[in-house]
């Protein structure tokens, strides 16, 4: 008898889980200053609309952000209601039917980057998300150091970048032994695929599906990957932990500590490099990434999109919040305060923005060179394979040819598994 009493007590406990009132839960991650800014926006929205919003702070790492959302959505949880999604995994969410269609919400989709919306935000004819900001890889450089070593123009090609780096590194090492010419994302994670795509595309290669097959093991791709490996092991202008630890934030910190001449990163780093405690404040320039001799410039499309969970219990309120985030006013403030490239094109013509963010001119140019990663619901599995083999090549464990050959073969199996 008592045994059942125990069980009963236990299930009572199960029943006692607290239920929350009608609140929009907004899941977002990012750098500290970004979170602070979101907190401010949320408070303003609450005051203005009288709708309660709770900010659910996610980690900075995009894989971990995805994990939290996948668990919640897959189990049909009511929270979070609104969230930001990386372009890389948005297709998985859309194809899994986790996103509430935004049709009929009165949102004018023409004001957003048309190509981007068409590429990722529309799934089987329905609008399911919209870009909060668009991203592209850019080159940061130390103006003061280029001047010091007598360089009057920026490196146009990767070959030139290498040349500059070698010389400046040799000179700077005398004072700071930790100095490196060029830092970029090479750890085994999504960022590596982005970096590779840029090198490869600027050599005339890329990551493309042709007739349902991934074409990867091509001459230009091998050359690009070889070059990346050589930056670390042969020319040694990139630190040896490039392929183990270097993600966005590690790279940004490295550069911000004044330990590098060039940096490949996303536009978000600009505002942080100019912050008060930055050692490179006022010494940084921004430019499109170089290309290989005879190639064309390339910049990987990144960015975050906002959507509403299909399982949300506050869809109406959530939509209000989504509209708020995508409004001209908020998009402009995101640009001014966080240095983000708004998903809305009209903000780029705003006089305040152009005045206070002169580098937006450069960014607008960058968007001409945008290249996209394959858009597919199983992109994460494809990427997992790519990350593994690209990283093996960087570590020197496999030759670039071998790495790409195996990656192509393994991706073939992934494609076969999921497309039928």
């Amino acid at each position, binding site marked *: 008898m008592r*045994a059942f009493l125990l069980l009963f007590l236990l299930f009572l406990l199960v029943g006692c889980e607290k239920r929350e009132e009608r609140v929009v839960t907004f899941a977002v991650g990012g750098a500290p200053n970004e979170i602070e800014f979101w907190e401010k926006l949320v408070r303003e929205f609450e005051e203005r609309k009288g709708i309660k919003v709770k900010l659910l702070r996610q980690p900075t790492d995009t894989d971990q952000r995805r994990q939290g959302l996948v668990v919640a959505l897959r189990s049909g949880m009511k929270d979070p209601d609104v969230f930001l999604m990386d372009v890389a995994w948005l297709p998985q969410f859309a194809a*899994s039917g986790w996103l509430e269609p935004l049709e009929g919400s009165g949102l004018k989709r023409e004001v957003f980057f048309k190509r981007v919306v068409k590429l990722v935000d529309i799934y089987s004819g329905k609008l399911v998300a919209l870009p909060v900001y668009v991203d592209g890889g850019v080159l940061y450089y130390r103006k003061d150091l280029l001047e010091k070593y007598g360089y009057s123009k920026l490196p146009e090609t990767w070959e030139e970048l290498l040349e500059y780096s070698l010389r400046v590194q040799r000179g700077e090492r005398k004072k700071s032994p930790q100095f490196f010419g060029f830092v970029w994302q090479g750890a085994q994670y999504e960022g590596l695929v982005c970096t590779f795509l840029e090198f490869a595309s600027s050599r005339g290669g890329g990551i493309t599906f042709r007739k349902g097959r991934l074409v990867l093991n091509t001459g230009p791709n091998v050359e690009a990957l070889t070059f990346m490996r050589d930056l670390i092991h042969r020319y040694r202008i990139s630190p040896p932990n490039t392929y183990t630890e270097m993600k966005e934030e590690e790279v940004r910190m490295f550069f911000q500590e004044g330990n590098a001449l060039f940096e490949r990163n996303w536009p978000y780093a600009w505002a942080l490099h100019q912050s008060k405690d930055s050692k490179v404040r006022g010494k940084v320039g921004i430019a499109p990434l170089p290309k290989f001799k005879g190639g064309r410039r390339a910049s990987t499309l990144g960015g975050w999109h906002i959507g509403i969970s299909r399982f949300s219990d506050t869809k109406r309120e959530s939509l209000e919040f989504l509209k708020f985030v995508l409004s001209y006013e908020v998009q402009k403030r995101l640009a001014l305060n966080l240095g983000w490239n708004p998903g809305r094109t009209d903000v780029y013509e705003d006089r305040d923005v152009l005045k206070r963010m002169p580098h937006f001119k450069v960014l607008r140019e960058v968007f001409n060179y945008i290249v996209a990663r394959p858009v597919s619901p199983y992109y994460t599995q494809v990427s997992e394979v790519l990350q593994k083999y690209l990283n093996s090549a960087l570590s020197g464990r496999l030759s670039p040819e071998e790495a790409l050959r195996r990656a192509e073969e393994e991706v073939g199996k992934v494609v076969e*598994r999921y497309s039928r």
Partner: protein
Amino acid sequence: MLKGTLGRYSSDELRDAFTFLLPLILFISIFILLPVMGTFLISTYREVTFLEKEFVFLENYLKLLSDGAFWQSLRFTLLFVLVSVPLEMVLGLAFALIINERIPFRGLLRTVLLIPWAVPLAVSARVWELIYNYNYGLANLLLLKMGITDEPVNWLGTELGAFIALVISDVWKTTPFVAIIFLAGLQAIPGEIYAQAQIDGANLFQRFFRITLPLLKPVAVVALLFRSVDALRVFDLVYVLTHGGPGGSTTSLSLYAYKHFLAGDFGYGSAVSVILFLIAFLLSILYVRASGFLSEVAR
């Protein structure tokens, strides 16, 4: 047969036994056995969040056969067991011999020994992560200071380095457990045997190799099997320390399955889990038989 035996049990006792056992049976059935069977079932489906669910029977397993990453993770997992468990056994025995002696602060020593085992692995793994850090980790600091290497070692960045790092951390974490098991074995050896051997003129090492080791064998078998099954399921350590890298070289089977769950592919992830389950199950049958043998001896 059942009827025959039933006669020997009083119905009153049977009823009570059933009531007393019911909660345990319910819990284990619902939260362990049912999920295991569920995993077996899911592994026969193509169950992906963005595709129609479809019964594919053994297709997931056939795909595993030609999946290089699966073989790599299987190889890593087995290698990890084969390298770390023996190290733990040797070190664990040494520690057990120490804390079995009548020495000052014995209680304190035992406590110290327990701490690495008692602390959450995910937490201590982060300390190890920092110890192996390329730029300012303790390991490189010491190596450089002592002049053993000129350049910092890229612990977590090379395949071998990452493997060694994982083994060291695992040995640190689980040696205490092995030592405690050996301690129990040592305490079961009657002191008179040693006294007699000493009278017969056997020295310290002879006594250890002729008496202690042979008598510890059953306990050692239990510890070995238990640790092997435990090491097979390694997850926390690789998740925190290496994320399965570099180049996927330290992705354990558990982590490989988990990564598929995360990507929304439950069928394939379940198939990987089933394989791990079967390997572990075979070993645990051996373990159960060994400890059964032991409890027979103890009686």
